[in-house]
């Protein structure tokens, strides 16, 4: 087997997304083409890569000792932290990458972006990089082959524990040789950092509210159904229409009235009142935001539009909604319960906004044609929302985006995130046809832009009749199931008490270890015992299903400690002291979480069964 075949086999076994794109790849589509790429022997019998690009020759490794060179280069970075996240521009011949692999630790993640397919091809043919290709802690993207993987991986790997520990580096010379690709690389890193920060801040902001919503919405379980149950009742072969709250909706009311019965209309929560006032009743309303202001949702007992929601959606909105509730995503806390009852837990990615969530819902429901209405993602003059509403976060959060007419248009940072989200989705779902029915607003690449009138005549040709009565009769849980739900919640209440006891024990252990850092009062055996006890308590706490609920509170109240807990220094004693102090704070947050949850959990247990039971 040749080196190339061996490497390719590794890609086939371990990286099927890349493999599927690589096998159909034509080198004529590559960017950053080279005039020459070759390897030469070094003085210590290793290999150095030499390339010629734009008539200039570059040597990418030392001619003397490339491994030593890589080691000295890597010594400038701090790999001491746990959970290192390293991103590198340039694979080269793997020498620098292997040095990082040796230093990054067992929990490290390495994301490689190689801008030159010619280099990658040469390396695949001449270097055995199977150790790199088979390592599942390494992501490799080659420009023009599997570009999306870089973007997607960054958004998946950054979390609260490693966001502060990122190492971003460039293979020597790559920035000089491929400057445009390098700019792209840094921009992707910046965007992914902002996106991760947004997600973390959302978790912190909503921490306690998630808990309140999940527990207070349990009383609705008896009457809810899941998205999969709705899917069976919906017509096929008609498009979905998502009505968001952009200012353009006001100009499209007459068309929306004509759409009724010819497209399944999903309205985001914020636009429902406006639509009802204008005489348009959608087929579904969607709500996501755990803290959505109640003033944005109509309190109309006569309106029974079914609501598609998360278990974490705002309970205050659930309380003033009078129709059927359809769960599209269950909380991690209740997921095990669904499985125990033989049901597939509903799962839809939360994404960034209720409109993007609605898009995911439409994809889950099997719609192939999706028409976006009111997804302006830009200001219309000073207006941000339909009904002449203005909402500003301050001009520092405003920016310019490309509009559907090719001109730049004023938008916001969060709207830009939504544009990127849609574009990512359209890359992942090439079979979905998305029509963006607007004449102004931010351009979403991959959509077909056309006026709503034209979209109706092109895609909404047949009418359908959807039975709300059949939907009302669908219930995920029967009486026996609800009894088991109550048992599950009751056992969670018992577990809370045990968690508090273990957390208190752990705090005592931390106190002893902290004191020892200052006074050396404990023997090595005693220290090891205390550390083992901490580990056991930690494992026990994290294994309890109720911890999946507590986690949100703990993250919200100890985010700063969680961001720093994996950061280490040269000073061993200082590392220990920091770790014990942070661990103590986190265990205290666990106790606070348990105390916070207990009364609402008790209330939920009382309310599981319907009142006529």
């Amino acid at each position, binding site marked *: 087997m040749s080196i190339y075949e061996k490497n390719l086999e590794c890609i086939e076994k371990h990286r099927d997304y890349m493999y599927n794109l690589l096998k159909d790849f034509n080198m004529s589509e590559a960017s950053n083409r080279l005039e020459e790429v070759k390897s030469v022997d070094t*003085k210590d019998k290793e290999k150095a890569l030499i390339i010629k690009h734009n008539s200039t020759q570059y*040597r990418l490794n*030392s*001619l*003397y*000792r490339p491994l030593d*060179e890589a080691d*000295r*280069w890597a*010594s*400038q970075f701090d790999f001491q932290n746990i959970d290192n996240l390293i991103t590198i521009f340039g694979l080269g011949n793997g020498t620098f990458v292997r040095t990082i692999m040796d230093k990054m630790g067992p929990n490290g993640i390495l994301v490689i972006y190689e801008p030159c397919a010619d280099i990658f091809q040469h390396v695949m043919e001449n270097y055995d990089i199977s150790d790199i290709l088979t390592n599942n802690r390494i992501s490799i993207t080659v420009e023009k082959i599997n570009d999306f993987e870089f973007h997607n991986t960054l958004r998946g790997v950054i979390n609260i524990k490693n966001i502060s520990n990122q190492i971003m580096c*460039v293979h*020597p010379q790559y920035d000089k040789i491929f400057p445009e690709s390098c700019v792209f690389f840094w921009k992707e890193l910046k965007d992914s950092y902002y996106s991760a920060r947004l997600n973390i801040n959302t978790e912190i902001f909503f921490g306690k509210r998630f808990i309140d919503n999940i527990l207070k919405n349990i009383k609705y379980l008896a009457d809810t159904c899941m998205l999969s149950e709705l899917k069976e009742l919906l017509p096929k072969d008609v498009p979905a229409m998502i009505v968001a709250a952009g200012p353009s909706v006001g100009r499209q009311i007459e068309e929306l009235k004509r759409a009724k019965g010819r497209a399944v209309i999903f309205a985001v929560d914020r636009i429902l009142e406006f639509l009802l006032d204008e005489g348009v009743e959608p087929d579904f309303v969607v709500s996501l935001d755990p803290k959505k202001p109640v003033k944005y949702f109509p309190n109309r007992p006569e309106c029974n539009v079914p609501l598609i929601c998360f278990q974490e959606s705002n309970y205050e909105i659930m309380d003033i909604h009078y129709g059927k509730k359809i769960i599209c995503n269950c909380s991690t806390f209740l997921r095990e319960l669904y499985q125990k009852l033989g049901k597939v837990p509903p799962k839809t990615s939360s994404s960034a906004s209720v409109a993007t969530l609605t898009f995911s819902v439409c994809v889950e429901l099997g719609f192939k044609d999706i028409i976006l209405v009111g997804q302006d993602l830009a200001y219309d003059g000073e207006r941000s929302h339909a009904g002449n509403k203005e909402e500003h976060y301050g001009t520092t959060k405003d920016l310019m985006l490309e509009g559907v007419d090719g001109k730049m248009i004023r938008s916001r940072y969060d709207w830009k995130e939504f544009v990127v989200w849609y574009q990512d989705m359209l890359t992942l779902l090439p079979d979905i046809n998305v029509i963006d029915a607007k004449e102004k607003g931010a351009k979403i690449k991959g959509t077909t832009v056309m006026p709503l009138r034209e979209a109706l005549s092109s895609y909404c040709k047949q009418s359908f009749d959807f039975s709300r009565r059949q939907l009302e009769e669908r219930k995920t849980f029967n009486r026996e199931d609800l009894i088991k739900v109550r048992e599950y919640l009751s056992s969670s209440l018992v577990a809370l008490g045990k968690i508090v006891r273990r957390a208190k024990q752990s705090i005592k252990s931390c106190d002893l270890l902290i004191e020892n850092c200052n006074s050396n009062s404990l023997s090595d055996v005693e220290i090891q015992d205390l550390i083992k006890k901490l580990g056991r308590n930690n494992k026990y706490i994290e294994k309890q299903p109720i911890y999946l609920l507590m986690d949100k509170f703990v993250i919200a109240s100890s985010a700063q400690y969680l961001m720093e807990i994996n950061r280490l220094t040269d000073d061993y004693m200082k590392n220990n002291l920091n770790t014990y102090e942070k661990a103590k704070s986190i265990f205290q947050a666990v106790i606070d979480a348990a105390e916070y949850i207990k009364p609402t959990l008790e209330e939920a247990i009382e309310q599981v069964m319907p009142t006529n039971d």
Partner: protein
Amino acid sequence: MQELSIVVSEMVDAIDRTTTLFYQQKVDEGYESLYLTLGIITQGMNCLFRYKELNDKFVLDEAQLNQILSQAMAAIEEKDTILLSDILQYELKEFLQNIVID
């Protein structure tokens, strides 16, 4: 002899500082350091030659030294900081360390 060891040690430390910066792609700082290192190497060479004049038994392979320094100058002219670092690290530094050992 002790004075020679100190001189060589200073040259070796200067080489280490400069080459580390270049290997880490800190090019601007590397050139600043190189300027100082070249000064230290020049003074160090002067000491070596003076020592040789005073000690018949001291062997200094001037031809090899000239060749190494020429290669280093060529690398500087080519702006090949990695090749320069390799020459300083694996040719010149080893040459100087061997003087002390011998």
